């Protein structure tokens, strides 16, 4: 019988990215005991990779900006499927959260008068992203980490949660194992905050790391929580395409924000050819106007390269399919051209986009100050996630909260760049506060010992099957291949039906995977365990995408290419039924209050 090491906290935070750390700091500040569990070392979570910036209507660069504009931009970007309450709170509280970060030591780039500088990003009407060159995520996670270690929280690094524990219908903590030795743990807790991030590893081409196997979504789903908006997976328009081994690695939108342009192999700026109705009013109609916008001319409108990500990704896809792509199956992204407009453009680019310069120089032997890059779409962000109450971040399971990429609601059908880092701060803080309050208001919980044993035995099963059984890496690879080809940027019913079949077969194979060696830092074993989660989220994405018979935001259905007004009033909910099967249903959006409707009207 596997042994368990036992810990007990008021609040357990699962995940130590921006959302998890912000939640833990807040919970600790509210006077409860806090434990944090994360799969990697502290400071290595996905948040560290974020580049472009944090969206907040500070109005430091353009004083016309305020929460109402940010709210309207977020709703428009999400095609109005967003949880409007979250969009409202986010727009209102983001500036305060950015200032809080500064008070904890973050050092953002500055305006001439010494305030926090803000940059342009797709879908944001005014320059809104507080940033540090193109390594904003590093600044954010390090600030939270360095503040957090003195804030009174116990961190369990390199531990993976296997399942959530319930006491009756209430959350009771989580169990898992450490990567170092494969020892099992119980973290008993009165309240749990899920902050586990996204699902990018379900696809072959992705900007996401090994961590993104959808664990939080699968944990919540298996515990009986509702998931929402699972069909909306963001494909970022600009990932690296060459060399093959770096395919998918992100090229920040900041490149376009600083004046970078997209061209096909004929040299044409194809983004001017297709500007959606919803954005016509706000988009430049000449190259010159677009350039002036990126340089801060308040009278100019934004260039079409800064349209929302779903749209830019599809335009790139179209160019490539039409044979107008670059040599390695992407298109050209050019920032070097600004030498025609700016003196000392090389230094300017290196200062504004240092890690992009470094990344291309080192990984692709290419100098972005002199040559165009080749880029193509890459799986980037999960808009869907755990369904929550907008104010408290409470899920449908009492005591279970969620924040960050694992949560659904704020972004609707498509997320605007920069709105994730602000999301982490605003809702991490809220989740931490409400989880602490829940823990204070509710008594101790018990742990179901037989459940623990079952979880541990299931986790150890791959060792019994041994190394001659099915290879876990191969099963993961086959799933990624299927999701990429059948449930990617362009979707149709027949392909998705096929995907469901493949997922079914892969589930059988996943049951048969085996690993050799022992429990000590065994990556093969970890991969085998994560498979179950990847399969759940892949099925949820596919079923939700099948049900939504329209194209909206990140979901593009070739068989239903238009928007459907009826679907525009509904979210899709995914839940495990009493029969153990996955249930998918449409649910009416709650009505929006008149004041918010008026804001949207006013900003049209």
């Amino acid at each position, binding site marked *: 019988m596997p042994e368990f090491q036992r810990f007990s906290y008021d609040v357990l935070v699962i995940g130590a990215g921006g959302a998890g750390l912000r939640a833990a700091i807040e919970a600790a500040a509210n006077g409860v005991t806090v434990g944090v569990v994360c799969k990697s070392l502290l400071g290595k979570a996905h948040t560290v990779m974020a580049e472009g910036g944090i969206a907040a209507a500070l109005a430091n660069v353009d004083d016309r900006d305020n929460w109402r504009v940010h709210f309207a931009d977020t709703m428009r970007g999400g095609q109005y499927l967003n949880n409007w309450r979250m969009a409202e709170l986010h727009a209102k509280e983001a500036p305060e959260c950015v200032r809080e970060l500064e008070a904890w030591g973050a050092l953002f780039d500055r305006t001439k008068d010494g*305030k926090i500088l803000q940059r342009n990003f797709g879908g944001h009407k005014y320059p809104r992203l507080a940033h540090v060159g193109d390594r904003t995520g590093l600044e954010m996670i390090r600030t939270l980490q*360095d503040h957090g270690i*003195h804030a009174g929280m116990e961190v369990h690094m390199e531990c993976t949660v296997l399942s959530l524990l319930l006491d009756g219908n209430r959350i009771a903590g989580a169990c898992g194992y450490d990567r170092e030795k494969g020892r099992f743990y119980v973290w008993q807790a009165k309240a749990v905050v899920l902050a586990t991030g996204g699902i990018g590893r379900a696809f072959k081409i992705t900007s996401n*790391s090994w961590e993104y196997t959808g664990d939080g979504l699968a944990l919540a789903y298996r515990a009986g929580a509702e998931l929402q908006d699972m069909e909306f997976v963001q494909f970022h328009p600009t990932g690296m395409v060459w*060399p093959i081994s770096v395919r998918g690695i992100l090229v920040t939108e900041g490149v376009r924000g600083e004046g970078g342009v997209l061209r096909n192999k004929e040299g044409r700026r194809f983004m001017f050819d297709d500007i959606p109705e919803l954005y016509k009013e706000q988009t430049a109609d000449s190259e010159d106007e677009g350039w002036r916008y990126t340089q801060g001319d308040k009278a100019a409108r934004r260039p079409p390269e800064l349209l929302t990500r779903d749209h830019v990704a599809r335009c790139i896809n179209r160019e490539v399919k039409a044979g107008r792509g670059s040599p390695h199956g992407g298109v050209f992204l050019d920032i070097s051209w600004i030498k025609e407009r700016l003196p000392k453009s090389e230094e300017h680019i290196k200062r504004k986009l240092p*890690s992009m310069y470094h990344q291309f120089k*080192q990984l692709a032997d290419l100098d972005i100050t002199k040559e165009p890059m080749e880029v193509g779409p890459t799986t980037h962000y999960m808009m869907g996630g755990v369904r929550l109450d907008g104010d408290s971040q409470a899920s449908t399971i009492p005591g279970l909260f969620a924040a960050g990429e694992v949560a659904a609601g704020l972004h609707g059908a498509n997320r605007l760049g920069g709105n994730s880092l602000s999301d982490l701060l605003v809702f991490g803080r809220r989740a931490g506060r409400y989880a602490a309050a829940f823990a204070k208001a509710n008594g101790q919980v018990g742990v179901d010992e037989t459940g623990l044993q079952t979880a541990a035995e299931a986790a150890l099963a791959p060792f019994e099957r041994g190394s001659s059984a099915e290879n876990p890496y191969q099963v993961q690879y086959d799933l990624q291949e299927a999701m990429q080809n059948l449930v990617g940027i362009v979707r149709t019913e027949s392909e998705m039906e096929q995907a469901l079949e493949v997922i079914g077969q892969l589930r059988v194979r996943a049951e048969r995977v085996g690993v050799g*060696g022992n429990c000590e*830092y065994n990556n093969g074993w970890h991969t085998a365990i994560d498979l179950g989660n990847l399969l759940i989220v892949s099925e949820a994405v596919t079923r939700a995408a099948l049900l939504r018979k329209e194209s909206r935001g990140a979901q593009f259905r070739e068989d239903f290419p238009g928007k459907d007004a009826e679907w525009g009033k509904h979210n899709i909910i995914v839940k495990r039924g009493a029969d153990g099967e996955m249930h998918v249903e449409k649910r009416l959006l709650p009505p929006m209050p008149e004041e918010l409707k008026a804001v949207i009207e006013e900003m049209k």
Partner: protein
Amino acid sequence: MATPATFRIWRGNSAGGGFQDYSAAVEEGMVVLDAVHHIQAQQAPDLAVRWNCKAGKCGSCSAEINGMPKLMCMTRLSDIDLNEPVTIEPMHTFPVIRDLVTDVSWNFKAKKTIKQFKPRPPDAPDGTWRVQQADVERVQEFRKCIECFLCQDVCHVLREHHKQDEFIGPRLLVHAAALEMHPLDAEDRVSDLRRLHNIGYCNITTCCRQVCPESITITENAIIPLKERVVDRYFDPLKRLFRIL
């Protein structure tokens, strides 16, 4: 156009281990981490390795490649002579957990002994500060650190003299410099740097600076100015006199 190459990877744990040879096909543009992943997926599923971003941003994949401390994800195979086996081993300064994974937890513990950021009162009534870009840039260099701990790995005070209990190493001196030179910080760490963190143990060999993948000028920009602050406070007779007066 794949070329075959041999990778000599250290396998083992705290009890001991040794090198094992694997062959893998190398294609254009591949980095060392790609080769390790290929080997893991096809030949050695239980091979232990850390990574996250694959783009030099997270500092997870540190190792010694042909004896040189490097990030595996940023070391291109085209820059290595593939006629000889490529050796890949864990960082030596830290206790090995398994294969290429080491126990770097000491760095996290040692960091806690450095006094945290304490801002001066806000400059504006709305609780915000005004800072010039030039002042920000000086410190931003230090804040680029991705905590790969390669500099700690090469520092002889830690690697050969095992002074982990007394000396915080270059990474954490960079951290202390980032705080001390932060335009808003009002805390004083000079006495700690001298007595608790023993900055004096560093004899400016510059080994740390030479391996930093973020090209942080660790010695010249961080350590030497910190040493100067210590000297100014404790060894400059004139200044000492002024303080007494």
